[in-house]
């Protein structure tokens, strides 16, 4: 970059001469030239601006800054020969320049205080989540009394977007999971010549565990995040406030249809996933383990009781409840900024998956105690 701005000390006239364009692009260059330390030895100085071609507010800031630093060191500073516009600008800048440096809110806290704060915050959040669920439950009970005010349209649009539109991707992923499971288990079974047991293993593991869990995780990534993001944007746009003032609670129009919709959709999607995962397993068994389609389908009802399917399906409404309430809650917690939409969306997916797995573990314990 061309530097045509200059600042120098002229011994003869005891002046600091400023020259050229004192503009923002020259500031760092000028800063390196200004030798405040060396100049502070003189009892008084004149800053001469006669040769300044163009002065902008950054340049004016530098001059004011120079004056201030020198004055603080006991030098009497005078400004001379600045043109009227520059003088005006200098006055404006000097009037607005901040006097104290490094004022910033001090919010450094110790580690223990941080831990305590986090704990309290988390408890508060749990509390407000429970309050949210409680309020929705009350609203839901009120709605059951008057089925006329049910929002069928928003319910069906949720079922369409969360369910119908999710069918292809769920089918594909489940199919692949089936293929992988059959391949991994088949490798072990082949060693013992126990090929035919692949049917038992696949049936049990997919119907009981894999399909419900995988579907719930996929749906929380696909639909839970969408709930949070869309509700969050509505919150930022004051659409939620608008609904409240129109006498429609966001719960009845936006939240309850989402929760009910997902509770309808998730079991159906899980069944869909069951079908495709088993299909994937069948393809693999046919190709790798020489178990024909007919053999597979004949053995399947003999070794897999209906109970397995029901146990798998029975937990899906709980998963749906977890995904939908967390997604909606995080959406309604969005505040102030676009950033918070992103943060809460992440949080909603992470929390939903976390609690799905926790719930899965609890179900396993309960079912084993019940000897199911």
């Amino acid at each position, binding site marked *: 970059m061309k530097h045509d701005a200059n600042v120098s000390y002229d011994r003869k006239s005891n002046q600091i001469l400023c020259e050229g364009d004192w503009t923002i692009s020259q*500031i760092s260059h000028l800063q390196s030239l200004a030798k405040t330390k060396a100049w502070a030895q003189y009892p008084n100085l004149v800053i001469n601006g006669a040769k300044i071609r163009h002065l902008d507010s950054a340049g004016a800031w530098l001059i004011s800054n120079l004056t201030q630093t020198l004055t603080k060191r006991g030098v009497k500073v005078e400004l001379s020969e600045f043109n009227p516009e520059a003088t005006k600008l200098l006055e404006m800048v000097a009037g607005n320049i901040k006097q104290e440096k490094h004022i910033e809110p001090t919010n450094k806290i110790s580690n223990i205080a941080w831990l305590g704060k986090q704990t309290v915050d988390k408890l508060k959040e749990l509390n407000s989540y429970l309050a949210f669920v409680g309020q929705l439950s009350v609203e839901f009970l009120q709605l059951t009394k008057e089925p006329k005010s049910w929002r069928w349209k928003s319910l069906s649009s949720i079922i369409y977007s969360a369910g119908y539109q999710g069918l292809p991707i769920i089918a594909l992923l489940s199919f692949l999971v089936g293929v992988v499971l059959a391949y991994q288990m088949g490798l072990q079974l082949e060693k013992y010549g126990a090929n035919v047991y692949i049917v038992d293993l696949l049936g049990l593991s997919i119907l009981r565990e894999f399909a419900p869990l995988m579907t719930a995780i996929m749906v929380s990534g696909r639909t839970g995040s969408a709930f949070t993001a869309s509700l969050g944007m509505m919150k930022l746009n004051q659409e939620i406030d608008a609904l409240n003032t129109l006498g429609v609670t966001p719960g009845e129009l936006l939240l309850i249809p989402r929760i009910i919709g997902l509770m309808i959709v998730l079991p159906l999607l899980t069944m869909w996933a069951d079908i495709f995962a088993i299909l994937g397993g069948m393809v693999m068994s046919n190709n790798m383990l020489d178990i024909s389609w007919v053999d597979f389908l004949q053995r399947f009802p003999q070794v897999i009781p209906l109970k397995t399917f029901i146990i798998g399906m029975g937990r899906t409404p709980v998963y749906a409840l977890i995904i939908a309430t967390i997604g909606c809650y995080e959406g309604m917690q969005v505040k102030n*900024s676009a950033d918070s939409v992103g943060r809460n969306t992440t949080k909603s997916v992470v929390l939903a998956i976390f609690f799905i797995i926790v719930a899965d573990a609890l179900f396993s314990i309960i079912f084993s105690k019940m000897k199911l």
Partner: protein
Amino acid sequence: MTKDEKNDQSKTPNKQQESLVEVSHLAVTLGGTEVLKDVNLTVNRGEILGIVGGSGSGKTTLLREILGLTEPTSGSIRVFGKDISTASPATLLSLQKRWGVLFQQNALFSSLTLLDNVIFPLKEHTNLGEETRRELALLKIMMAGLPEEAAFKYPAELSGGMQKRAGVARAIVLDPELIFLDEPTSGLDPATAAQFDELIQNLQETMDLTIVMVTHDLDSLWTITDRVAFLGEGKVLSAEPITTLVKNPHPLIKSFFSGPRGRMAQLQYQQEK
């Protein structure tokens, strides 16, 4: 300096009339509707130009065109002498450093504090040290009439008027020559709006700015603009000082200024004089 002195000054022949923005025969079609048909407009250095027109007359579209945010259907726009629609990215960047924009919704970055919002252009376009950037940004925040404490708040924590001022602080931080303001006083109470007009005028005088403002605010038009361009029927119907614009016989202009608000603003201005 009062408004009239300034007008006189701009009339003196020795001050050369350099035009910073030249729009010629601009036509824009958005989604099948012809928003602008044939717009011709120049903005001269050192003036405050108001752009007015009824709702939907294409004021904001014109502004977006000048800023290079939307492609023109036909016609040309020259800013600082360069054609904006054909400019290379490097040229465009050099132009962007020379202008500042205040958007209608302020467009502050919601995830940054006000100070960081103002520092942002400095960080992107200058090689200044961190401390210098901070101090320059703080200076601009104070010049925009905000208290120092506001610097550490997030945009959502500020009132509408303060957000506007913050937007101005960000627009002037690179010491631009040209500033675009889109509805700067909309949504502000009358007292704040008047202060804001004063701020704009102040900045214009001290920093030698050229200002283009889209506005509906009749008081702003009377108190601070040098010229007003009236948009209607897809073109600039007239661009002249407000005192003569109100006498323009064109039906659109007449109905715009002859409402009770228009008459009140005019009356008040004439009384003050």
